Structures are given as structure tokens and as C-alpha cells.
């Protein structure tokens, strides 16, 4: 145990509580009595990782097994990293304070592309070689999951196996198989070969990739009996799947510091830019009774005074009204606040609205994503200007004076008129405020517009699209700024540098592994933090490999090109994505899944033992 060594360094670092564990509901076990020690690594700092619901679920799930002890590991900030390296303190689990290099399994969650160098840095801090091929022993098996696993090729050389899709079942299967391997003295290769037979497990070393002269992929060839395509896993029935009865409650403030209930998975909306909207299909909901029970358990075991109802689109949850009717009496009695989506509460009963109004008001935020109706049709963001105005009106009349709007620049087919549309929409909201006799008196209005740079992602209808160049982004940002003529509108944007890198990595191939490694060797880590990000390290690493950003980011890809993720199957078919891409170019929307099934293919993920109707999409109440 490293406690003594840690005491001498922790007095020198910012926020030492990040590095010492001991939080309520953290799990300690007798290491002599478990078969498998698992390090769950979140490649970002404590406050970010501890806000993540998926980690909480998988941590509790593994620790529910008597034979497994799962611990949490986060990336140290630069001050702690320097002291760890200086004092030879290897990366350790927060529960046991023991080095993770001696653990059986190490799992990373890949939530965003910019965490890739942090993964390498954490392996290195653990005292392990970063390349999978150089870790020859059975233990530790290094695995990774999360949304970025849908195209994990830029990490293929570092990770032994990827878990595609939802982890509640497949993680346990991998642990079971590991126990057999350990007892039978299997080699790592034997374990990986057998693991690759489990649905949802992708072992990149079992696939050979060849390239054409133009740099595109010629073929992906499975080896050693690996399946031609790897299909992601889903949980068919969310009401019977494991959900924690308690969360680890951090001793320091983290980003999302509250109970979280996952009301649904997937999304019915089909916004064409949104990767989450496609890779988490099919749409499945939890029953309100299950959620109410989970909410009570969490409140009791955590002492949290806030519960949020999380999902990609909680306002689409078909049992929201019965859920709130059940939750509001006990939450208000126990001084527990409920965080709710601000949209689509217009058809509730007046009593319920009054109850919701008692909950503390947070700011009002919307994501129209685009400024003109044509642009919103292209991206299939089915929100109209009337709806935005109507909700703003209700909000202003209810006492709100500030609105935050999220947009994207660089969407496919975007023109300067569409860019100007963003400023126009914000202006209309300002005008609306001053036209209302019922507006809050003595206060001005504040409209914040935040414009991100669009990143085309795999498994979306825009996976074929070129990203705008950084110069194009700058031109659009400057133009948008020039269209704003009032101080009531506050415009926020950031340079397109990291968005370009995200686009490169999101749709990148295996040749980028050497680039990720090169950037890390030059000092890259925690790249999503602007204070640590330095693009020159990436520029040099790209140049060293003779690769070009624009090949990955700014090139239109043919429908029949073999993508780096071509052998991975997330349920949505390529034909569907091509269909949707063509509709986007024709400014044509697709109805949401409740209105009409778009035949995306995701219901096929239920497989043969179909226990539920496809998608479980119920009619809108």
C-alpha cells in the first residue's frame, strides 16, 4: 500500500482528495479472497470521471461479484504526475492504493477522442508498455469501451480488446473467461482468441488491415477464427438489468455531483450529426416504477439532495408524467431537488407544473444547433422556430431573463446565410423579450449563443462528409460575430483546432496509432484541457508518419469506400446511413421513431431471442 509514500506528495498537490479514495460507498475487499482484480480507468481527472454514470454502473456491477474487486483510477493532473514520476509512485487503485500493473484486468472508458494520449500516459504511469504487443503476459488484460470504441482503430495497437456497446453483460463474461484462463495458465493470445468469440468483443490484433495507394483501406481480414464483423451488445430489458443501489459519493465537488437515473437508452430523434443518437440504438425505456425505486435507493444511500433524470432526450420519455407524480411527493418531503429537461413540459397538468416550478430554477438552455429552418432540416433537428419562441415566451413570463443556445458551425451544405441565421434567431429572442408586457421588470435579457465546430462521426449519416477546414471555421466565426449588433447577445466560440483533431481521430485508421504515440511521447496528455493541449506535438507526430490531417478530416468519402470501422456492426445499417445522407442533401427530414420507423436496422440487435417488440417505441401520450 502506497499510503506512506503518498502522504509526502499529497501535501504538495492541488486537491489531494482526488488521489486518496476513501469516499462513502467506495468498495474495499480482502485481496486474498478475490480471484480478479480490476482497475476501472477513466482517462481524465477525478472530477470528470466521478461524474460519469457508466463508470458508476460498471463499478458496482463488478463489485457485486464476490470473486472480483474493481477499483477506480483517474488521470493525475500535471502537479501530481510530476511528483509520482519523481518519487517512483506507480499508478494505483484508489481503493487499495496498490499499483494497478499487478491487477488482472485494466479497463478504460473512451468517452472522447481527446483522451487517447491520456490512456497511453496512464499505462506508462502504471509501469506498463503502452503497446499491446509488448505486454506479453496474460495479466493485465487491457480493455476499452465507451462511444469511441465504435471506431477504435487509432487505439488498436495499445488496447488488447474493445467492448462494443453496452457493458453490463459482456464485462461479466470476460471476467468469467479470464478466471478460466488464469486457472488453465492460458497465454494472453489464447485468452484473446477465445474472447473474440463473445459477441461485442473486438480484438484488433486478430484483424489485418491493408491499404490502397490513395491511402484508403483495401481490405480488413480476420485471422485466427475471428468473425468477419463484430456486433455490439445491447441490454434488451432495462428493467431487469443491474443498476447500482448506491453511488460512490465524492468528498470533493465534482462536475455532476448528484444521483442520476438513466430513464432511457437510445434516442428517437435521429439528428443526423449526433453519433450518440445512432450508436445507442435501439430506443429502450425504463419503467417509471423501476426508476422511482432506483431513485429512492440512491437518495437513501448517498445523501444527495438532487436527482437528475438523464438520457439523450429525457423529454421523450413516455412515462415522465407518472414518474414525476410518484417522485415529487417524497423528494419534496426530503428536500431533494429534481433536475428536469426544460423542453416539452407544456402538456402537463397545472398541478404538476406547479410542483415542478418549486424545484430550483437552473438556466434555460436549448440546442437548435442551426440558425435556419433549411439547415435544421438538413441535420434533421426537428425543432421549429415557433417552438423555440414559444418556450422562450413561457420562460420569460415565468421570470427567466437569460437563455443559452447551442449551435454548430460547419454543418454539411451550410452557407453564409445559415451562419447569419444564428444571429437572427438570437436577435428575435431579444426582440421577443422586449415585446412581452409580462416580462420581468427592471431586468435586461441575456442571450448566449455558443457555436461549436461540427465534427463528422462514424455511424452517422454524416460519416461521409468533409469537415470544414480551420480557415473556413474562422471565416464563419468572424462573419457570425459581425452579424451580432447588440450587447444583449453574448457569443462564445473556440478555435477549430481540437475539433479538427477530433475529426481526424474519430474517423481515423490504424496508421494513426503511431501518431497518438508520437504525440504522447512529445508530452501530450489531458488534451481536452486547453492548458495542457499543444497542437504542435500532433503536427510533428503526423509529419513524422507522413500523414496528412486533411485526408482524414476534410475529404468527402465515397459511399462504397471501406471505412476503418467497416467490420464493426452497431445495428444501424450502412444502407440506412446512405439513405439519410441523401435525404440531408435534399433538405428533407425523416420523422422520428415514434412517428414512423425509418428501418435503421437497430431492432435487429435484439437477436433471435427477441423478448420485446422492436425498439419498444410507444405512442406519444
Amino acid at each position, binding site marked *: 500500500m502506497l499510503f506512506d509514500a503518498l*502522504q509526502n506528495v499529497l501535501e504538495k498537490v492541488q486537491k489531494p482528495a482526488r488521489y486518496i479514495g*476513501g469516499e*462513502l460507498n467506495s468498495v474495499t475487499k480482502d485481496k486474498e479472497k478475490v480471484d480478479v482484480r480490476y482497475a476501472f480507468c477513466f482517462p481524465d481527472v477525478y472530477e470528470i470521471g466521478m461524474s460519469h454514470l457508466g463508470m458508476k454502473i460498471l463499478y458496482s456491477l463488478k463489485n457485486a461479484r464476490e470473486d472480483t474487486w474493481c477499483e477506480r483510477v483517474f488521470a493525475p493532473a500535471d502537479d501530481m504526475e510530476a511528483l509520482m514520476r519523481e518519487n517512483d509512485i506507480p499508478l494505483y487503485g484508489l481503493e487499495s492504493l496498490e499499483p494497478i500493473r499487478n491487477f488482472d484486468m485494466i479497463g478504460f472508458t473512451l468517452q472522447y477522442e481527446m483522451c487517447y494520449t491520456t490512456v497511453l500516459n496512464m499505462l506508462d504511469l502504471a509501469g506498463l508498455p503502452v503497446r499491446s504487443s509488448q505486454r506479453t503476459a496474460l495479466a493485465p488484460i487491457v480493455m476499452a469501451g465507451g462511444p469511441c470504441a465504435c471506431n477504435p482503430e487509432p487505439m488498436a495497437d495499445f488496447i488488447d480488446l474493445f467492448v462494443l456497446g453496452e457493458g453490463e453483460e459482456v464485462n461479466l463474461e470476460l471476467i468469467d473467461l479470464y478466471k478460466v484462463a488464469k486457472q488453465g495458465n492460458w497465454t494472453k493470445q489464447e485468452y484473446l482468441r477465445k474472447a473474440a468469440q463473445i459477441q461485442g468483443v473486438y480484438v484488433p490484433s486478430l484483424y489485418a488491415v491493408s491499404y490502397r495507394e490513395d491511402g484508403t483501406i483495401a481490405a480488413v481480414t480476420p485471422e485466427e477464427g475471428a468473425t468477419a464483423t463484430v456486433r455490439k451488445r445491447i441490454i434488451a430489458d432495462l428493467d431487469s438489468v443491474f443498476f447500482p443501489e448506491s453511488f460512490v459519493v465524492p*468528498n470533493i465537488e465534482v462536475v455532476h455531483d448528484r444521483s442520476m437515473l438513466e430513464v432511457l437508452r437510445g434516442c428517437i430523434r435521429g439528428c443526423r450529426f449526433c453519433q450518440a443518437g445512432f450508436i445507442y440504438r435501439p430506443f429502450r425505456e425504463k419503467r417509471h416504477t423501476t426508476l422511482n425505486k432506483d431513485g429512492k435507493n440512491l437518495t*437513501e444511500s*448517498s*445523501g444527495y439532495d438532487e436527482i437528475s433524470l438523464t438520457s439523450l432526450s429525457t423529454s421523450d420519455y413516455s412515462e415522465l408524467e407518472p414518474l414525476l407524480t410518484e417522485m415529487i411527493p417524497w423528494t419534496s418531503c*426530503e428536500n431533494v431537488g429534481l433536475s428536469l429537461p426544460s423542453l416539452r413540459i407544456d402538456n402537463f397538468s397545472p398541478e404538476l407544473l406547479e410542483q415542478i416550478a418549486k424545484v*430550483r430554477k437552473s438556466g434555460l438552455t436549448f440546442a437548435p444547433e442551426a440558425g435556419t429552418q433549411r439547415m435544421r432540416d438538413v441535420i434533421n433537428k426537428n425543432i421549429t422556430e415557433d417552438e423555440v419562441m414559444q418556450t422562450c415566451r413561457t420562460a420569460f413570463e415565468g421570470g427567466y431573463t437569460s437563455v443559452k443556445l447551442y449551435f454548430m458551425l460547419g454543418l454539411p451544405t451550410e452557407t453564409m446565410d445559415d451562419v447569419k441565421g444564428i444571429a437572427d434567431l438570437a436577435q428575435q429572442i431579444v426582440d421577443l423579450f422586449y415585446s412581452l408586457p409580462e416580462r420581468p421588470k427592471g431586468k435586461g435579457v441575456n442571450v448566449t449563443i455558443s457555436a461549436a465546430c461540427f465534427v463528422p462521426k462514424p455511424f452517422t449519416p454524416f460519416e461521409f462528409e468533409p469537415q470544414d477546414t480551420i480557415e473556413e471555421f474562422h471565416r464563419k466565426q468572424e462573419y457570425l460575430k459581425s452579424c451580432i449588433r447588440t450587447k444583449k447577445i453574448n457569443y462564445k466560440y473556440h478555435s477549430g483546432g481540437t475539433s479538427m483533431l477530433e475529426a481526424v481521430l474519430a474517423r481515423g485508421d490504424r496508421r494513426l496509432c503511431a501518431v497518438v504515440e508520437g504525440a504522447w511521447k512529445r508530452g501530450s496528455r489531458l488534451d481536452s484541457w486547453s492548458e495542457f493541449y499543444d497542437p504542435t506535438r500532433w503536427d510533428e507526430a503526423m509529419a513524422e508518419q507522413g500523414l496528412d490531417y486533411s485526408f482524414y478530416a476534410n475529404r468527402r468519402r465515397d459511399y462504397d469506400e471501406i471505412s476503418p470501422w467497416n467490420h464493426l456492426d452497431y445495428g444501424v445499417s450502412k444502407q440506412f446511413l446512405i439513405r439519410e445522407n441523401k435525404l440531408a442533401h435534399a433538405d428533407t427530414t425523416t420523422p422520428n421513431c415514434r412517428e414512423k420507423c425509418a428501418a435503421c436496422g437497430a431492432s435487429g440487435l435484439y437477436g433471435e431471442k427477441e423478448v420485446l417488440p422492436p425498439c419498444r417505441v410507444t405512442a406519444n401520450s
Partner: protein
Amino acid sequence: MSGHGQFLKTVRIFYSKTARAKYVSHLDTMRTITRALRRSRVPLWYTEGFNPHLYLTFALPLSLGYEGQCESFDVRLTAEMDLDTLTKRINAAMPMGFEVLRAAEPVMEPKAIVWADYQIRLLYAPADREHARQSFEVFDSQPVIEVQKKTKKGEKMVDIRPLVQTLSAQWGETGVALTLRIASGITTNINPTLYLKAFYQWANREPEGVRVVRTAILDENLREFC
């Protein structure tokens, strides 16, 4: 379980904060204990008003990185509860390193606090130990120890000698064990680090490690805060 309206009585909870818990700052300790109290389902009083919150006051904040053996906070009960039961209930809800020692009705007011005792270990590398020992003897025998202290009005020089009493200093294998009695409370509050940093500067040596434990909180007559 938790109630508004009238409260029945105020209870002072004495607890220790040791091991991993010493890295929880005062602000975070307040949040952590608030949550523990919510989980304990002890009938506690919430303030009235638009945004009711748990009534919870601490006698004397403890610095980040220090252990404490005599920490305390006050809460208010809305219903009668046996103090042993209350102690057990809150203890069961506390995270690692926080331990409730006892509960009692308050006798003193926090403003009665004048001194606090600290046990401090400074760990030195073998090569530095003798130098540190000799330096400490000279440093500690000075009639005046001036340090820069940050106040609301900026920095000023303060003589902390009358505010820090060295009760004992024992040099051993790994370094020194000091017992200091330091002016604490609402009128004059000195952080032991001020004194320690002045010594490091004087000796021109940083120790390899520092361990600080607050062992007693005292009033002007050196009675333990209760």
C-alpha cells in the same frame, strides 16, 4: 424525518478526522458531513426560508492535510433521541476516516476557544537531521519570531512567538515530534504551518514529510472545549 418549524435542542457532535479523511478540506468536510447526516435519518432541523438547508455549524475549521482528534459540529434535533443511538446512527453514515466519538449538549460557545494543541512530526532525511535539530534549538529559543501573515487588508509582519508555545520537542530516528500549543479561535487564529514554514526558512531545509494532528481544543483556562 427531517423537519422545519421549531427545533428541540442543539447537540454537539465530537468526531475525529484521520487517515485518508485528512485530505478533505473544510468546505468539503461540511458538504460531506451534511450528506452523512441526511443518510443517518436523524431528526434534524432545517433552516426556514426559501431555500431550507441543514443547520450545521463547526467549532473550529481544520486545515487541509491535518488530522483532528477533537473536532466538533453542532446540529439541532427536532425530536428527542437518545444520544448513544444518535452517535451510532451518524457513525454508520460517515465515510472512511470520519468517526463520531460522542454527542452531548453544548457547554461552551465556540468563541470561548483560545488555544489548540497540535502534535507534529517532521520527517528528515538522515543527512539533514542533525542540521535541522541544531537549527530548531536556536530558532525556537528566539524571543521574537516574525512571519508574514495574510490578512484581509493584505500582508503584514506578525510576531507569532507569543502565539505559539512549544510544549515539547523530541528528536528521534526519523525526525522530530513536536507538541505545539497555538493561539486559535475567532480573535487570533494561527495556522501551525506559519510557524513551521518560518522554521524551514530559518533552517534552509524542507522536511521530507510533515504529519500534523490536532489533539486538543482549549479555552482560556486550558479546559477542553465541550
